[in-house]
C-alpha cells in the first residue's frame, strides 16, 4: 500500500536508516487515480483496510516495503501510530474478524513499488521524495498532526 523508499533509486538496494535520515515520504497513487489529496485519517483507514474503495469505486491495493525498512516503520508510526509488529497483529486480527478483505502487498524495492503502483490502477504506496518520478502521482497528505520525524523520516505534505 505504501511504498517507503528505503532503497536507493539507482541501485534498488535498501538504504540504511541513517542514510534515510531527514528524508520525506511521499504517498503515491496510479496516474489514472483522480485523487490528489488525502487526510492522515483517510490514509490511516486505507492502511488499516477499513476503506477499501476509491471514490470512483476501484478497489484499493496497498503496496508496502519489506519489514525492517525505515520507510515502512516511519509510515506506520506517523500514520497509524503503530509498530510493524502491531500492524501485522492488527492485520491478522482484522482478517480473523472478517473485516479485512485483502492484505497489503509487499515489494522488495522502491523500484518494485513504483512499478506496482504504475501498473495497478487502484494501488497506493509510498516512496522517498527523490524516488518519485512521472510514472506515478504524488498525493498531498493533509492534517499531519506530528510533523516530526520517525525513524529519520517525515511524512511529506506536498
Amino acid at each position, binding site marked *: 500500500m505504501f511504498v517507503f523508499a528505503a532503497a536507493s533509486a539507482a541501485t534498488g538496494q535498501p538504504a540504511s536508516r541513517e542514510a534515510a535520515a531527514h528524508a520525506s515520504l511521499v504517498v503515491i497513487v496510479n496516474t489514472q487515480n483522480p485523487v490528489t489529496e488525502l487526510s492522515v485519517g483517510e490514509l490511516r483507514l486505507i492502511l488499516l483496510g477499513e476503506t*477499501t474503495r476509491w471514490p470512483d469505486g476501484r478497489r484499493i491495493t496497498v503496496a508496502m516495503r519489506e519489514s525492517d525498512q525505515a520507510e515502512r516503520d516511519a509510515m506506520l508510526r506517523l500514520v497509524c501510530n503503530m509498530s510493524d509488529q502491531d500492524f501485522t497483529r492488527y492485520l491478522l486480527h482484522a482478517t480473523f474478524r472478517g473485516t479485512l478483505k485483502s492484505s497489503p502487498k509487499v*515489494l522488495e524495492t522502491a523500484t518494485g513499488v513504483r512499478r506496482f503502483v504504475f501498473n495497478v*490502477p487502484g494501488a497506493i504506496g509510498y516512496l522517498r521524495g527523490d524516488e518519485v518520478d512521472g510514472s506515478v502521482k504524488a498525493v498531498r497528505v493533509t492534517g499531519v498532526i506530528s510533523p516530526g520525524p520517525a525513524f529519520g523520516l517525515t511524512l511529506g505534505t506536498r
Partner: protein
Amino acid sequence: MIVDRLAPQARFLCSCACSIVLLPLAAQSAAAQPTEEPQQIEQLQKRVDELEAQVKALQAQADSEEKRQADAAAESTREGAEGMRDMLTPLGLGALQIRGFNDIDFRTFRAGGQVNTFSLGQLDLFLSSRLGSDFSTLGEIVFEADDTNGLEVDVERFLLQYSPNDRISVAGGRFHTAIGYYNTAYHHGNWFQAATGRPFIFRFEDDGGILPVHGVGVTVQGQIPSGAAGLRYVGEISNGRRSRSPDDEPVQNVEDENAHKAVNVALLSRPTGIPGLQAGVSVYRDRLERAAQPTIDETIVAAHLVYQVPLFEQLNEAIFIRHTPADTRATATTSSFYSQISRQFGRGRPYFRYEFLDVPNSELVFANQIGRSYGPTVGLRIDAAPPVAIKLEYTRLTGSIETQTNGFTLQFAFVF
C-alpha cells in the same frame, strides 16, 4: 520508457514507419534532384499514416493487456508484480489461507471439589479465501474437549461474504452475533485477547454462556456516510437460540424451532479524530418457544465504550437481557457489565478486569446461572515471541459462578 513497453510487432512497425519517413526526407535534402513526384510523396505519407495507426492500435492493445495483468496481480494472493508477495500468505500455500490458534492451560482452584489440572484449549483452524473481487469466505473449525475429556469438532463460524463497497457487506452462514463489542472483536483464538478467557457474560453457549453469541442467518454491515463521526451499522436476522430443552444444541444450525426469527441491529461510532475509540449500542429481539410452556419474548440491549490502541486498552460494556413470558408479562431482567484495562510495557501487558452478573430468581430461561456473581481478575500477559503469549492470571469471583473460574490460570496461547 514507452518504447520499452511496446510489443515486438509494434517495435517492428515503428521502425518501418520511421524508415519510410526518413527516406523521402533524405531525398528532399538532396536538392540536386528536383524531380519529386507529388503523387508518390502523397502515397508514402498515406502509408506512414496507416503504419502509425497500426502502431497506436498495437500499443493500446499492449497497454490494455498490461493493465489487465496488473489488476489480476493485485487481486491475486500468490502471484503479482516482480518481487511482490502477499503479506499474510505463507509461501507455497494456495488461495486458501489457513491459520491455527491454540492454547494450553494449567489451572489451580481456590475452592470447591475441583483439582488442579492441565487443560487443552481450543484448537482453532481459521480458513479464509478470496472468491473473486467482491466475494470471500471464512470459517473457524474448532477441536475442543468436552466434559467427558473426549474431543469434539465444531464449525464455529462459516460465512460467505459479498462486499461490493464499503457501504454494504452481506454475509450468510454462521456468525458471531453483534451483541456488544467483545463477541465480534474476539472469537475462538485466545491469542488475540489480553486475558486467558472471555468475560463470563460472553462465554460460549457450550461453556455455560447465557447470550446467543452465535447465529445462523444473514448479516449486513457497512459504513454510514457521516464524516468524522465514523458511523457504522450492523443488521442481522438469524434462527436465534433453541429453548425447548436445556439439553438441545443451543445454536440452531439447520432447523429453527419456530417461524419467528431473531433480529439484531447495532449502531457504532468510530470517530476519525480519536483513533481507537468506539462507542455502540445493539438491540436483539427473539421469541423463545419452550416445550409445553408459554412463549417468552427476549430482548437484549447492549452498550459499549471502548478505547483500544496497541499500547493501551479500556473496554467497558453493559448488557441487559429481558425475558417476558406471554402469559404473565412479568419481565425478568438480567444485568451484566464488565470493565477491562490493560497497558503494554515492552513485552509485558498487565491487565485488570472487573465483572458483574445478576440473574434474578424469576428468570425462566437460564437454569444454571441463577444469582449474582461478581469479582476481579488480574493478570500479566507476556509476548515471549510475536506468535506466543504467556499469561498468568488470578480470578476471585463471588457468587454462584465462582467455582467455575476462581484460582490461578497459566496459559500458553499461540498462533501458527
